[in-house]
């Protein structure tokens, strides 16, 4: 009797569970299953994954995606670190103004970001034209429609996100630790390397994982820029399901799972590092 009533109390948890099962777990599981099916015969096979590692199209897409994601995450994290530090050094008013600016810019991603970059750095972008007018050919060193162009855009959308995540992490670094270290004759550099950054490490790793996931799944920003010239995983995957050509569901599934595995691997490594480097012991 009591058991039954206890189970009844669990009913409110069902809708969330159902939603998650139907729209996260089932689709992913079915995708995993499909990725092991042969497109021709429908039999079980590893060939789809083999193709990812052997076919140069997929290799290039993978390495492009990895390069862009890692480079934009690392550069973005380092720059965000300094921005967040600087924001934290500001007075109260400056701080809240900067935070709302960062918040505002963090909405500026995807298609709008792409068009804005076309305006300033596209083939007829105003920077390009202005520089040309004074005799400098920007295209000799930088082109928007290249992997560096993509990298710049990625860094652009990583910065506000990274900074917004790291500002609270800096606030968690107690100012009295700085004072104590100063009195114990540590330089600011020694303080940050020996105390500040180690204390912030969990937040830094969390931010790294989030920025990476953000970069590797970026689709809207890159869609119009790369369709032909630079293959990237998200775009490749999407065209295999929705393109004008006949859908390649099995191969696409394998590629999607591949991308998800990369992303999960990075997240897991970050979490593992967080556990390994955690200092401070359990609370009593």
């Amino acid at each position, binding site marked *: 009797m009591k058991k039954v009533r206890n189970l009844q109390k669990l009913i409110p948890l069902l809708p969330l569970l159902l939603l998650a099962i139907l729209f996260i777990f089932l689709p992913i599981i079915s995708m995993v299953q499909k990725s092991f099916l042969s497109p021709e015969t429908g039999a079980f096979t590893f060939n789809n994954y083999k193709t990812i590692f052997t076919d140069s199209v997929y290799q290039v897409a993978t390495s492009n995606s990895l390069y862009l994601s890692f480079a934009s995450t690392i550069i973005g994290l380092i720059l965000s670190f300094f921005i967040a530090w600087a924001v934290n050094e500001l007075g109260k008013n400056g701080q809240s103004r900067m935070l709302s600016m960062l918040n505002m810019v963090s909405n500026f991603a995807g298609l709008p970001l792409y068009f804005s970059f076309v305006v300033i750095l596209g083939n007829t972008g105003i920077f390009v034209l202005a520089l040309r007018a004074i005799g400098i050919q920007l295209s000799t060193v930088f082109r928007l429609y290249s992997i560096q162009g993509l990298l710049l855009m990625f860094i652009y959308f990583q910065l506000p996100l990274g900074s917004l995540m790291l500002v609270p992490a800096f606030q968690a670094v*107690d100012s*009295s*630790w700085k*004072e*104590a*270290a*100063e*009195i*114990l*004759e*540590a330089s600011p550099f*020694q303080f940050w390397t*020996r*105390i500040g950054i*180690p*204390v912030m490490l969990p937040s830094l790793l969390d931010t790294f994982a989030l920025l990476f996931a953000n970069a590797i799944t970026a689709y809207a920003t890159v869609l119009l820029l790369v369709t032909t010239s630079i293959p990237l995983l998200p775009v490749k995957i999407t065209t295999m399901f929705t393109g004008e050509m006949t859908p390649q569901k099995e191969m696409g599934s394998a590629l999607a799972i591949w991308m998800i595995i990369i992303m999960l691997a990075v997240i897991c490594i970050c979490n593992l590092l967080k556990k390994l480097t955690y*200092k*401070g*012991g*359990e*609370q*009593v």
Partner: protein
Amino acid sequence: MAYIEFRNVHKSFGNNEVLKGINLSIDEGEFVTLLGPSGCGKSTLLRCFSGLETVTEGEIYLDGTNITDFTPKQRKIGMVFQQYSLFPNMTVRQNVAFGLQMQKKDKHFIAEKVKDVLHTVGLSDKLDQYPRQLSGGQQQRVALARAIIMEPKVLLLDEPLSAIDALLRRNLQVEIRKIQQNLKMTTIFVTHDQEEAMVMSDTIHLFNVGQIEQSGSPADIYTHPQTKFAANFIGHYNILSNPDLKKLCGLSSDCDFVAIRPEAVLISPEPLNDAVHFQGKITGVMLRGTTISYTIDCDGIELRADTLFETNRQRNMGEMLQLQILKEDILHLH
């Protein structure tokens, strides 16, 4: 010249002048307490001495050197903060060793020294624990160890015990004092707790809105407050205005106010010489450990009288009492 000297030290934050010309000397080996309510400038003076704040005007001397423009690093001082401020990513051992490592001392030397110091503060068994695993009292001992291992010229304690619960605080007070006396370390201690100041100090400097109100030994300050503020802040003095004093016992003072310690209000039938005599009715009884304090209404003037608690001589509410105060116990406040 004294070991430490503050000469006309001013400090302002914007338009807010927190220190209004402090002159203060401290002898070597002395335990000095800066006492006062929050916001009186006592912590600011300490931080100015440590170099964490710069002074707006004036000079600070330590051991004959003008250190006014020195960085904290150059001053060779130790400091313990209210919030412990232990580095959370380091063990007790690493925390304590930190300063010596910054000085690039020999590893072996550091290890030995850390053990010594932690023994002094009674934490030999916690070497490899992290701050989070320690109680507040233990954390503060580690902070103390981290400061004294540097053998600083001066030890600064910025309300180190305020975040620690009452019982433990008593123990730590005694212990800190003992360690200080053993090491003969010049110490400046900041607190808002007058009892703590009494227990620990050689000299107390009482602060009020950016100025020193009164300086002296604990006994001196306790028995002879010179101003209304001092009397109010130290102990639970009865403070009477001159007209009230006249009404109570017919005496008159040159000053506007007088202060009478609660223990000086005597509830005794035998009249003493050189005392004033009057009557009062008990309106409140409160037991405070070994003493008992009575609130007494003397014709509209409320007095507090403290006596030793004696089980067989309880007095009741509403009882009329014969009271007397020795004339010398009536302190005139400037």
